[in-house]
């Protein structure tokens, strides 16, 4: 909560994007989350990514379920469409929206409770369908809205505020997604926008479901010593496994963040992946035997990191040959919502002739 809405005054030298909008135009309502909540930083990163991509606000739909994370769709892109659905059921509603209108940029925001407990089946099937959407999991390891019980992503040994230790193994959304065929998997940290924003930009531009797991500390219930999802712990154990840079199709391709030489001296690990929208993702893994375009390699590397107690972050896997739900179903290039009723529903005569084929 805040005592006032954000003043409408802006910095007089704020830049505009190609739509003539400033970053402030991508904001939403005032957050009612706790002060210092990681989710608010994820919100700010989405605002920045959408502004940098010059996403037309009226072409975006924000989808969410239930939980602290699911409130955040109200805090960005106030001019966009949105649907706040039932607990864990966001992927179904998002799939419906994406199926009906392939021209929409669907942005789904969920949390570790919403996606890894009640909505786990929904999540895996949305990944399997490869619904064209950005799927952000704001992952803090606890149920914040119900005062901080462990969630399904809590690590073994992580402690609650009052000292209780978690002994059940966590579900890692990244490894899970890789194993059910996700075509774009990233992990980042709410406190590191330099890493998060390019991943989100690439994820929004990806054709298919782009899962981004964001460690987003719960400042009220899970930011203490002994927690494995606190700001301090995440910073101490975060290992940037892949550095990523997204270059939209309209920008001249030049090496910006990623030079020819990586920080650990491997000269040949730069990979350029072309996305369907014409933009490119430039990836550099920080380990020579890790290829982020190879599913098995990614799975192996991330598991190894996990065993060492490290949190592998970055754009961890991308499949440039991704076929989204629309590609698989060979739906019309015109969004279904824009088709005339008679084209969408050919009538009983057409149905009868179809039925005849099965007799």
């Amino acid at each position, binding site marked *: 909560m805040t*005592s006032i809405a954000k*003043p409408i005054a802006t910095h007089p030298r704020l830049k505009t994007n190609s739509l003539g909008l400033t970053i402030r135009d991508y904001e939403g309502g005032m957050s009612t989350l706790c*002060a*210092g909540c*990681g989710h608010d930083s994820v919100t700010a990163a989405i605002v920045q990514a959408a502004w940098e991509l010059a996403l037309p606000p009226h072409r975006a739909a924000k989808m969410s379920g239930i939980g602290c994370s699911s409130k955040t769709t109200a805090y960005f892109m106030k001019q966009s469409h949105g649907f706040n659905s039932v607990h864990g059921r966001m992927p179904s509603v998002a799939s419906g929206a994406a199926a009906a209108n392939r021209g929409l940029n669907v942005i789904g925001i969920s949390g570790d409770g919403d996606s890894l407990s009640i909505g786990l089946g929904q999540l895996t099937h949305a990944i399997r369908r490869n619904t064209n959407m950005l799927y952000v999991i704001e992952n803090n390891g606890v149920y914040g809205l119900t005062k901080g019980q462990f969630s399904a992503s809590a690590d073994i040994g992580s402690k609650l505020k009052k000292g209780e230790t978690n002994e059940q193994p966590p579900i890692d959304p990244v490894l899970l997604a890789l194993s059910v065929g996700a075509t774009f998997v990233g992990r980042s940290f709410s406190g590191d926008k330099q890493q998060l924003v390019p991943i989100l930009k690439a994820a929004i531009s990806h054709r298919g479901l782009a899962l981004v797991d964001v460690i987003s500390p719960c*400042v009220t219930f899970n930011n203490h010593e002994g927690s494995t999802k606190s700001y301090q712990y995440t*910073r101490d154990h975060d290992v940037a496994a892949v550095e990523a840079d997204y270059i939209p199709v309209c920008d001249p391709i030049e090496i910006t963040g990623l030079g020819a030489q990586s920080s650990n001296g491997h000269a040949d690990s730069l990979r350029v992946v072309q996305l369907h929208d014409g933009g490119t993702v430039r990836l550099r893994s920080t380990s020579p035997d890790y290829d982020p375009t190879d599913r098995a390699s990614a799975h192996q590397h991330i598991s190894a990191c996990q065993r060492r107690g490290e949190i592998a972050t970055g754009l961890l896997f991308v499949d440039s040959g991704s076929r989204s739900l629309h590609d698989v179903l060979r739906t019309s290039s015109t969004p279904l919502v824009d088709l005339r009723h008679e084209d969408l529903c050919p009538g009983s005569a057409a149905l009868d002739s179809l039925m005849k084929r099965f007799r």
Partner: protein
Amino acid sequence: MDPTDVSDPRYYHKVVDCQWACPAHTNVPAYIRLIAQGRYSESYLLNRASNVFPGVLGRTCDRPCEPACRRGRIDEKPVAICRLKRVAADLRDDIEPFLPKAPEQKNGKRIALIGAGPASLTVANDLLPLGYTVTIFEKNREPGGLMRINIPSFRLPAQVLDDECGYIINMGAEMRYGAAVTSLAAVLDEGFDAVFVGSGAPKGKDLDIPGRHDDPAHVHIGIDWLANVHFEHIKKIEPRVIIIGVGNTAMDCCRSAKRLGATDVKVVARRGRQHFKASPWELEDAEEEQVEIIENHAPKRMVVENGTLVGMEFDVLDWTEDASGKQTSRVLRTETIPCDAVILAIGQDNAFPWIERDLGLEFNKWDMPVVDSETHQSTNPKVFFGGDAAWGPKNIIWAVAHGHAAAISIDLFCQGEDVTKRPPQGMNLLSVKNGLHSWAYDNGFDASGRQVMRHEDLTKRFRDMKVEVELGFSAEQVATEVSRCLNCDIQTQFNAPKCIECDACIDVCPTACLTITKAQSSEAELRKHLTVPATNADQDIYHSSPLPQTERLMVKDEDVCLHCGLCAERCPTAAWEMQLFDLLQPKAGATCHEEVPATV
């Protein structure tokens, strides 16, 4: 990089742009808040503590605060600070019980003040409560100096001036009216412990062009003419009048002329409008009264036929500027403007024919006394200067600032102390947190535009010199204008060890003031690496000590901070706090004491 030192009062003082720009460092945001709360008398007293003449200055100040106002960088128009000051003065109750009083027991030191203008009166205001015996020499029969005789009463009613001079004089100053000082030696011979010269810059500049002296009855020196109008020695003027010069005196002359019967008044300037010395609002007010302003005309001669002034001849100039910014002019043609009278308002000079040159008081090559810019002491240690008398014409608020500084020096000098050892500025910082999401100030942003001053009808204002043109703000205008103030004195204070680098403050800041970034080799370099690069070099940036988790720095560009407090509201660890900054100005007789504590 060393972290920004915010323990130096100058850092936060500079953030309060208006207070920093005001020569007397008036605590503007605090007095505006008091007006907002309807506490007009307290607002008046807070004003008076630094600027001494709130009623006068609320009408006539040159307003250095307003171009500095942060609001002007947010939505182009600054807060109407000056006219809000007038609100406090107009609506105050009787404040005399709260004024400082001179003690019965004097301290035995006698001070002579020459001239009863704003500088001398400020010195008297500061020294009388300390027990000094103060004698003021004034050539006229009333106090006020240029405030009285050079500012027409349609801008400054006599009652306002009488009240504010009275507050000081009634503390027990000995007034010697009608006593033009003709010899400084004679004053010193009276055995005063110190003398303060606050006699202004009383000599209007003349214009030496052909024909100047051919019809002297119709060519006037601006400030002398205004004085004669004040004393009603002059009650009318011919229909067609040309004013030469385009400073604020010229504005007073042209508008006075309109009230004394002139129907065709032209103000003629050598240069283009962007070089005019008059304040923009005074130019606007003159133009509203149908005064014509003519640019790029250089006076050539006065045309006198049969002993009567009939016009003035001008060279019409074309100005060009070279790459280095040097202006050169070229004469396009000559033009004659018919007129019946000319008023010369092209500046003022100091004149010290009454100061003997054998008193140990040095004069420089411009025949101005050598005066120390900080202590106001001349080379005769007993003699101090201030106001226009010290370094030439400035304005009232500067005279007040000089008066305060000179009073400190005179006090130190009379107590046998070193006048160069100035008492330091101090500050208080006080948390304004009332509770969760509750502040002791109104942190909302009001997007309203600057309120426009209401003026007396054009049909009514020319009936009498004494009809005040500006009517003051209405109650609704006051309510709106006070809420435009951004409360820049409610400072954002950062405590680096508490920061967990969650970015909440950066995300919520409406004007992109905050950045967490790596240290750079220099502050200039750091300015380039901010959320929005800090290109306004006049405004400081704050950078913290290294943050606990990543050793990056918290950086704040002060330029367009709205002081809305959202950074502090969204901070989970209270690393950001909102604190009321109160500048403690040194005053004569005490190293640092407040007369009226600032409140929110």
